[in-house]
């Protein structure tokens, strides 16, 4: 295997790790926000919910920003094609995300009930919309979306928002939403107190059941969708030009990778196992939290492994599909970025751990009511 080929593989894995990092770290505060109006019925209860993530949510959100930046740096063709192809969906996600910093910061600064309720629902939207669109986008990747490139590598596409909101993709959106709500409930079970914690514990059960059912349905449906397969041998270390290959559709094609490598089923076990264990361990919230982290990890790993080596298949011009072998940056860029990640990510994880340690302990009503700095 040449260096370029190894680098592309490493960066495919890193992309998955960063997406998992986003889902595990930012997922629980998106899930917390999604649960806000339901587990918090009084103003103090809602403030408890908000303050469980208050000190850490901004650091968590950087996983989302980094995900975008890493896709740009390592897979610029994917960045360009998916962000512009899914334009209106991206704008919708951006709109709700933009409300979050203001929601957290501004909400409790005025006593006005209408003001606070508005921001509560803004935070709710900022939780459920990205969580759902994330899944919808992934679902569409499995189905393929209509796009191609001209000779200058300029993209043309007939992707539309309505086209993206098809039944299978919407199911995947619900999978993603239930997964994130589950993880958020697990966090609240760990970090909140009183009635909020009790309601979160119940939410874990409901969201967990919903996730298991929806995830299984989506998996069964996935078997009915024709997968994509590269025809013939393809250079894995050639220049990044998607137009040089041929691709066919294969029935049950998305199960090909797991059939060839049954060890990949471990990722499925992680997802299901994480849900079951977390629900069973609710009385031990720290352990439950670790188990609930397995759920997005396993789900994303399952999806990524099934999709490999495809990144963004084209339903209208299959040959133009973006794959790991022809949509990456140059060898030098991948190598430099790998060095940067190895250099920086452990440092990030280290100081993030410090912050969680410093801010350890449940958030009680007294913390919120007596403090001048709480949200």
């Amino acid at each position, binding site marked *: 295997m040449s260096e370029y080929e190894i680098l592309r593989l490493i960066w495919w894995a890193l992309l998955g790790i960063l997406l998992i990092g986003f889902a595990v770290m930012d997922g629980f505060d998106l899930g917390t926000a999604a649960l806000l109006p339901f587990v918090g019925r009084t103003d103090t209860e809602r403030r408890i919910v908000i303050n469980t993530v*208050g*000190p*850490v*949510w*901004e*650091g968590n959100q*950087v996983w989302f*920003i*980094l995900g975008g*930046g*890493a896709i*740009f*740096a390592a897979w*610029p*063709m994917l*960045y*360009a*094609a*998916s*962000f*512009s192809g899914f*334009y*209106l969906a*991206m*704008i919708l996600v951006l*709109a709700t*995300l*933009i409300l*979050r*910093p*203001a929601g*957290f*910061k*501004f909400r409790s*600064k005025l006593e006005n009930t209408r003001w606070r309720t508005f921001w509560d629902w803004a935070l709710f939207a900022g939780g459920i919309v990205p969580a759902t669109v994330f899944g919808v986008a992934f679902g569409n990747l499995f189905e393929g979306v209509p796009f191609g490139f001209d*000779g200058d*590598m*300029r*993209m043309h*596409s007939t992707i539309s928002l309505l086209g993206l909101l098809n039944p299978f993709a919407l199911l995947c959106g619900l999978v993603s939403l239930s997964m994130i709500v589950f993880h958020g409930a697990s966090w609240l079970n760990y970090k909140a107190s009183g009635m909020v914690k009790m309601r979160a514990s119940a939410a874990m059960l409901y969201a967990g059941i919903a996730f298991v059912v929806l995830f299984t349905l989506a998996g069964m449906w996935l078997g009915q969708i024709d997968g994509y397969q590269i025809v013939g041998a393809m250079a894995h270390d050639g*220049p*990044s*030009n998607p137009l040089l290959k041929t691709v066919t559709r294969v029935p049950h094609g998305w199960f090909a990778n797991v059939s060839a490598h049954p060890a990949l089923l471990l990722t499925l076990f992680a997802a299901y196992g994480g849900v079951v264990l977390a629900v069973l361990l609710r009385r031990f919230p720290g352990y439950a939290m670790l188990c609930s982290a397995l759920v997005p990890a396993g789900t994303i790993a399952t999806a990524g492994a099934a999709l490999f080596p495809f990144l963004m298949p084209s339903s209208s011009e299959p040959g133009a599909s973006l794959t790991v072998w022809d949509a990456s*940056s*140059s060898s*030098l*860029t991948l190598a*430099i*970025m790998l060095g*940067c990640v190895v250099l*920086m*990510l452990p440092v*990030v994880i280290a*100081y*993030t751990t410090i*912050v969680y340690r*410093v*801010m350890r302990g449940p958030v009680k009503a007294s913390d919120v009511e007596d403090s*001048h*700095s709480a949200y």
Partner: protein
Amino acid sequence: MDIVELSRLQFAATALYHFLFVPLTLGLSILLGIMETVYVMTGKAIWKQLVQFWGVLFGINFAMGVATGITMEFQFGTNWAYYSHYVGDVFGAPLAIEGLMAFFLEATFVGLFFFAWDRLSKIQHLMATWLLALGTNLSALWILIANGWMQYPVGARFNADTMRMEVTDFMAVLFNPVAQAKFVHTVSAGYVCGSVFVLAISAMYLLQGRYKEFAKRSMTVAASFGLASALSVVVLGDESGYTAGQNQKMKIAAIEAMWDTEPAPASFTLFGLPDLAAHKTNYEIKVPWVLGLIATRSSDQVVPGIDQLVDQAKGHIANGVLAYRTLQQVRAHPKDAALRTELDAHVGDLGYGLLLKRFRPDIENATADDIAKAAASTIPDVPVLFWSFRFMVGIGFWFIALFAVAFWFSAKRQLDRYRSFLWAAVLTFPLPWVAIELGWIVAEYGRQPWAVVGVLPTALGVSSTSASNVLFSLLGFVIFYSALLVADIYLLQKFIRLGPQETIELPEDAT
């Protein structure tokens, strides 16, 4: 409006809007670090009050910076997809590193800054504050390395097999002189912004006879930090002028409205009325030698005029047509080594050839007339640049004067002595934002018609989405951002009016 105009409008609007909040974050974060250092060193509670009060205002502003920043990260992909493909191999890396190195740092430690006063020791909290400040400044570094590459694209070459620019020398990208000068200049401007913010609000308190001890201490810090920063802005502005004089000659000529090449050393036009049609500037008031010294740091190097540069562009464009033609042949016959060598000889001007796409899609058949039009299109908007630059610089010199006076008064302990000075400080409040936005107009509008100078014209960088989609998102941003701005200003002025006493809990022994 077509998709190019709409996309440009949207990017300009969101970027200018984002940069309402960033400079204050940059400046205030350092001021907070300074104030908290004094607190830890002296143990005097009033300094903690300073940190916490200015911190409340910082927090409101920081949230807006984050919110509007998310848009920027994704807008390259949503609205400038061809640009993202064409230069992403080079441009994407600094953005990703910005996330890894800077965003994580600032976003993580901002949480400790606000929430961990009672959980950390004094020194530990102080470290958190300085790490927050470091994060914001590193963020500026990486994004300006990215922008600097757009202005002067070093360390990369075109790859015919992938139809994009690819990195050849990452160190060259990092140490790009344009990027380095721009970074120090921009963060210094942010420091000035933070200093004026603190100075003006404190001056207002003194005029109202409120919070005298609080205000005087705030002004003392702002005055010294502001003076150093204001001087730094101008010095680095000069450095930027020099790097532009070397590497972005059309931008310098346009800022100067210098149509003809003058004999060296060129003079600087203080005032004038540029006439676009006639290619002259009327009613000029010139200062001899200044431009030549700034742009070339010599007395004998010529600064080329706009008309001369347009002439040179014609040559580049003709060469670019050759490059484009050869490129098509290489794409058709990828294994032909002779064709590739031929391409290498001309590929440096490929970007200039692409300028013709605006006038005809089949640029291989460009006529002399097309080439002349494409060459003329390399001139950015001269009057806008001319005046933006002069107002920005004028305001910049005013800051030096104001902070020098403030510094003098703070040393003499006479900050509340002269009401005229306090009023001058208060009225200066909006000026940093005016100067800063004008600066970005000079930087970005002055780079047109290029997205990446000599490599990719802006018009070619847009996504293939529909114009109506972009109109929808543009309107959406305008509405959202306006509403958020109203909320932001409302909250800021509420807490400024309340003042430190009402906003935060005063320790018992504070003044």
